[in-house]
């Protein structure tokens, strides 16, 4: 652990924070349907998911050797570029959590890397073709694949099981849901905790603390596993509510169909060489299963907001990361400014979230009706961000997409203005 500079230490801590947000952002993927159908109590569900995430982090020895799968040039990548990318990804994760929308943590990280790389060495550092094949196509394909599978499965299980007695059905589907949700959690821990290990290892190599090509040290594996498990346990209740109750209404049969489809898609995609985002697959599966019941409906307004968030993930995280990189490379004070900006924004988002707390007590209650005066908020936001600093500009579209949310923009915009 020698030669760990202050910058390197900051990058490592930031990577663990990202890992943490990744955990609580993605609890919903595994557990939303299990919680909303009542198969497990909310607290027990997230606890189980956290344990399985932790186990998953230790399970596989094949640590991600690249963090961006060829998206950007990683040779000679500077620690501060990784730092800037993480800042963009963390802020996007927190912002989408605040408005309760599921969005892919991997895409946020990829967006952050793209933005930071462009700001660092220019557009030539980004592999445009890979952006389409690894990000855009999978984002379209995942919900379709998982949705169609879940739709057919839900149809079938209603048809075949129409004569099943109440008691056996309740018991059976509960067990089925728990098993498939466990599988999703395990897969998530393996994939996503590894990603953080990859980032930290890459940063250690870049900073000269590790020889190139070495495996991550044990403390990296342990801390990455713990961070994601802790995040999972705290539970992104807002996102769980959206996925479990907001998108559609699920019965145990549908929850089981959705969860099985999600698990099948995730495992198939990661083993057949066409990786699909866990979040996109799970959301698609939930919607497919929602339509699979006679008279089932998908709330398309919520779904549309979610799709918009997916579309914005890459540019938004990228813009924040680019701004962060631009400031961070000015030297030590730049990095300090970005770090303060990150902490300040996280604190601001957390304070805003306390206005309307969503936790394990009210996770299964329907969403509050939309807040008032969306137009006024956007106008205030516009006023607050002129002239727009790089960091704040990207936060704007999120609000445009979700006019119902008040609060975050003026505060974080002011933050950005004060620090950038």
């Amino acid at each position, binding site marked *: 652990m020698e030669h760990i500079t202050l910058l390197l230490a900051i990058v490592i801590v930031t990577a663990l924070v990202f890992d943490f947000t990744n955990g609580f952002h993605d609890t919903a993927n595994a557990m939303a349907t299990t919680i909303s159908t009542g198969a497990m109590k909310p607290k027990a569900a997230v606890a189980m998911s956290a344990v399985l995430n932790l186990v998953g982090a230790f399970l*596989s020895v094949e640590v991600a050797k690249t963090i961006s799968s060829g998206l950007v040039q990683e040779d000679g990548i500077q620690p501060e570029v990784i730092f800037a990318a993480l800042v963009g990804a963390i802020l996007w994760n927190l912002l989408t959590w605040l408005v309760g929308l599921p969005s892919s943590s991997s895409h946020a990280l990829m967006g952050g890397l793209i933005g930071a790389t462009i700001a660092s060495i220019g557009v030539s550092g980004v592999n445009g*073709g890979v952006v389409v*094949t690894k990000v855009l196509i999978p984002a379209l394909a995942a919900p379709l694949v998982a949705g*169609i599978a879940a739709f057919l499965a839900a149809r079938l299980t209603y048809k*075949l*099981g129409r004569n099943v007695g109440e008691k056996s059905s309740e018991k*059976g589907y509960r067990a089925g849901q728990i*098993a498939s949700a466990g*599988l999703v959690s395990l897969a998530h821990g393996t994939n996503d905790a590894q990603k953080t290990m990859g980032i930290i290892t890459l940063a250690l190599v870049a900073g000269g603390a590790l020889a190139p090509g070495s495996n991550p040290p044990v403390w990296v594996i342990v801390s990455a596993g713990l961070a994601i498990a802790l995040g999972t346990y705290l539970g992104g209740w807002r996102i769980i509510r959206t996925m479990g109750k907001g998108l559609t209404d699920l019965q145990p049969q549908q929850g089981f169909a959705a969860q099985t489809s999600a698990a099948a898609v995730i495992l198939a995609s990661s083993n057949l060489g*066409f990786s699909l985002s866990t979040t996109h697959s799970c959301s698609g599966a939930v919607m497919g299963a929602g339509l699979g019941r006679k008279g089932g409906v998908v709330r398309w307004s919520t779904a549309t907001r979610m799709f918009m968030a997916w579309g914005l993930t890459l540019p938004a995280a990228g813009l924040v990361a680019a701004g962060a990189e631009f400031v961070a490379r000015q030297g030590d004070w730049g990095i300090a400014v970005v770090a303060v900006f990150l902490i300040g924004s996280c604190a601001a988002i957390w304070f805003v979230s306390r206005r309307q707390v969503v936790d394990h007590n009210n996770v299964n209650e329907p969403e509050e009706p939309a807040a008032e005066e969306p137009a006024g908020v956007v106008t205030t936001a516009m006023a607050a961000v002129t002239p727009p600093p790089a960091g704040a500009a990207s936060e704007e579209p999120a609000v445009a997409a979700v006019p119902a949310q008040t609060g975050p923009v003026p505060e974080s915009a002011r933050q950005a203005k004060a620090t950038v």
Partner: protein
Amino acid sequence: MNIDWAALGSVFGVSLVATVGLVTLFTLGITGLSKQEAAAAQGGSAVLARTGAYACFALCAAAVAYGIYLIVV
């Protein structure tokens, strides 16, 4: 730019077959157990239904085990 349609197609195919297959098996298992319960309630027993149900659940458990194997390896 080189989109691997074959890989995407196989992901779609495998996911679809696995999901529908597993859910069908599981539902059949539940149906079998339910029959057995109904029979037991009337004092009889439905051995075939129960055996079939257990076979279905065993196959589902095997699929879960295979899933864990895929994650670990």
